[in-house]
């Protein structure tokens, strides 16, 4: 009996202390297949196995926060840059030391993944919204908002229905932001060192209010349908009831499938109170690879990211699964001739990385409330936005 016990202890011990490293990666369905292919190469060259777990994108962050502190998390997490603030503030991410590889990445994308002066992710793809238009309904998209209004007054007919422009606004501050930012609206101001200042909220600045007024006027005039969500927007655009939508690369595949002859163009410029034309600045979202601070294979993980992921082969394979402008510059150069990528890139050049600090959590709800009050005509843009900023500052305990 005692002998048996020792055998059992020895077996369990062997299993526990076997040290052969294995990299565990959590990724969504658009990246997991590419990583699985790469795992074969990595195993052949280093003898180290990689286990890729496929998890739905919107589950990744929550599951990571639950699993990482208990040591059950992955070594590498593939996610979005706006998770970084929350994850790093919780002590779950390890800073990346790019070394000479830094020059191969778009500075904006690297900046998007930085928090508290450190880089926390190897960026892969960027995304931003722009105008996607139906060439049959509008051969030449308007370049200024005034031209857009002229077009809208010509073709809008709520009974058909037919609209010149539709975007998610029910409420949806993400798609609304370009209108507010064109003349200088912003979410958080920046400190001298480039970090974000959560107590400087610019959503009720003169520029933001100007953009919000334009939004309110279009709804009041019946030129812009209010309360539109993702499904309604798709139905209107694919059904030929909307000439233009403001959306991102995620709509492109379905637009092709719907047989729409589409084009991508910048969001029309807005004439600001001072008479100048303001370019709408959408949020930029960046997706990339992060390393768990509780990983026992950090050197291995960074070796994998910098020498196997940050290559044109891998980045191109990731791009082909899910075409977004690559953050890896040599790869971007290879695909820049694609007209869709180029067009989204033209708009993205004016983009602002979506704030990644955890304080952003206080912004979305209050901001969306303001948008719905404005869209419903329950409050003027000025009232609604000022109240939103007051609420955000109160939630963040700013003076």
């Amino acid at each position, binding site marked *: 009996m005692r002998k048996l016990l020792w055998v059992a202890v020895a077996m369990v011990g062997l299993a526990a202390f076997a040290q052969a490293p294995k990299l565990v990666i959590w990724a969504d369905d658009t990246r997991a297949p590419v990583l699985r292919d790469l795992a074969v190469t990595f195993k052949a060259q280093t003898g180290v196995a990689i286990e890729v777990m496929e998890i739905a994108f919107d589950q990744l962050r929550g599951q990571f926060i639950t699993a990482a502190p208990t040591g059950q998390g992955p070594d590498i997490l593939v996610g979005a840059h706006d998770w970084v603030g929350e994850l790093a503030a919780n*002590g779950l991410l390890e800073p990346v030391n790019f070394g000479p590889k830094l020059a191969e990445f778009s500075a904006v994308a690297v900046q998007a993944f930085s928090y508290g002066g450190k880089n926390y992710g190897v960026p892969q793809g960027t995304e931003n919204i722009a105008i996607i238009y139906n060439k049959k309904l509008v051969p030449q998209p308007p370049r200024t908002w005034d031209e857009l209004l002229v077009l809208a007054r010509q073709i809008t007919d709520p009974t058909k229905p037919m609209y010149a422009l539709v975007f998610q606004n029910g409420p949806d501050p993400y798609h609304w932001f370009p209108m507010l930012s064109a003349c200088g609206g912003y979410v958080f101001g920046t400190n001298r060192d480039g970090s974000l200042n959560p107590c400087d909220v610019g959503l009720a600045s003169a520029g933001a209010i100007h953009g919000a007024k334009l939004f309110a006027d279009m709804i009041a005039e019946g030129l812009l349908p*209010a309360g539109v969500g993702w499904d309604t927007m798709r139905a209107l655009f694919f059904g030929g009831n909307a000439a233009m939508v403001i959306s991102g690369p995620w709509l492109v595949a379905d637009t092709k499938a719907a047989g729409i002859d589409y084009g991508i163009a910048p969001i029309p410029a807005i004439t600001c109170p001072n008479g100048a034309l303001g370019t709408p600045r959408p949020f930029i979202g960046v997706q990339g690879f992060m390393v768990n601070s509780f990983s026992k294979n950090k050197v*291995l993980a960074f070796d994998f990211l910098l020498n196997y992921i940050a290559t044109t082969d891998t980045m191109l394979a990731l791009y082909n699964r899910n075409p977004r402008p690559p953050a890896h510059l040599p790869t971007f150069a290879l695909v820049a001739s694609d007209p869709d990528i180029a067009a989204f890139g033209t708009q993205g050049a004016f983009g602002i990385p979506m704030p990644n600090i955890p304080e952003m959590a206080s912004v979305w709800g209050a901001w969306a409330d303001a948008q719905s009050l404005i869209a419903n005509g329950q409050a003027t843009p000025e009232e609604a936005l000022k109240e939103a900023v007051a609420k955000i500052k109160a939630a963040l305990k700013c003076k």
Partner: protein
Amino acid sequence: MNGGSLLAQGLKYGLVALLDAVVVWAAMALLLRGDYLMVALLGVAALLLNFLVLSRRAYPLRFLLPGLVFLVAMVVYPIGYTISVSLTNLQTGNLLTKAQVIAQLEGRYYLPPAPETFTFWAFRNAQGDLRVILTARDGRTFISRGNELVPVDLSGPRYVRGAGGTVTGFDGYTRLTLPEIYQSLRALEGLDLVLGDEHVRLTSVREFGTYLRKYSYVPDQDAVVDLETNVTYYAREGSFTSPDGMRIEPGFQIYVGFRNYLDVLTHPGIRSDFARVFGWTVVWSFLTVFFSFWVGLGLAYLLNDPYVRGRFAYRSLLIVPYAMPAFISALVWAGLFNADLGVINRILGELFGTKVRWLQDPMWARAALIFINVWLTYPYMMIVSLGALQSVSREMYEAARVDGATGWQRFWTITMPLLWVSVAPLLIGSFAFTFNNFTIIWLVTAGRPAVLGAATPAGATDILISWTYRLAFEGDRGNQLGLASAVSILIFIIIAAISGVNFRFTRALEDVSRGV
């Protein structure tokens, strides 16, 4: 009792033995991981199970136990856990335990003024001991001896040279190939070598580099010293904080007693919005249950009538809203109610030339929500009522008819009292469920339209639970789980009180029916 066949007995003891073997194996694995609490729990559970199977006296418990286990796992444990979280500061930035934070901080390093990097060769002997030889940029070489790095002259005969003149081994140590280095990365990464007053660690698969330790924990001061700046950060309210208020991220979890409850109860905004949200929550639950019950009962009464033709087809059709996943129905209805593009407004426009601002006007949004929820719940009420109606004996109706009672009288004096007894507890359950029906509110209006001038993010259609969600997850820096748990416990108390009163009321009803 002792009539059980030999086979059954053998099977029983065999299974118990197998289970015990698994438990012993699992306990040892847990012991090795140092998880003593789990070992204790496992031991208690295993002993209990053995007692249940082997003791005759425990025979009745065998049937009760599964239910008890589920009661504890699904009800008692979550409530206990929620209470314990509500007493902590668990939120974004305070997720880890203090020990985890200290371990993480003590593992942080910073670069010395003149950082050095080294290429390296790693060696292993037959016992599995690892040693490394490092070569600095300027050609100096070092060898690891224990935790120390000492200068070494590699020209001696001890060091075996291979092709290309590189050292391939010494003193029984042989050099690792690159794949072997990959296999040994964990051990190499764990090396913390000392060179003078600097630390040398593995920085990549090909290099070591010099570092200095950033933080050191001082237990008797309960503080962390920043060795780079010499600032002391004391543990205060869940983070290490310097005398001038700078905090080190991440913070850690601490027990804060009843502070979350006090925050909720004394928050000026929460107090002003509470009455409005609570009022609407009660109205919403009451009207949903009221309408869905009467619609469901009415349909059930019709379908229970043997003279109605095609009852089966009607019944199947009427159950459809119940068969569809609620969240899909909710999203579809939200689309139908869209003021500009929804079908409902287009029909109203065609018929009456008017538009209703569903989901945008507070009153209409509430009406739409109640309508949608009645649509989703009436089939349940209908099924329940159908069952109850069929259990009412026909003889009573016949006797009533003989006595000359009208249909209306029969309904109110026979059907309703008998139905009420079996349906009332379900109505209370339905009320409590609707009270906390986050899904429908969130999918259709997300608590909106917003209320201008509200002190907290409380919209016109927010119920307590959705408001809680917004308070806890759309405030400050995101996840305020401690606060959210405190509010959940308060809501739990409110619902328990309402249900308690309701049950009193129905017990009185039961007494009435017993008297009948």
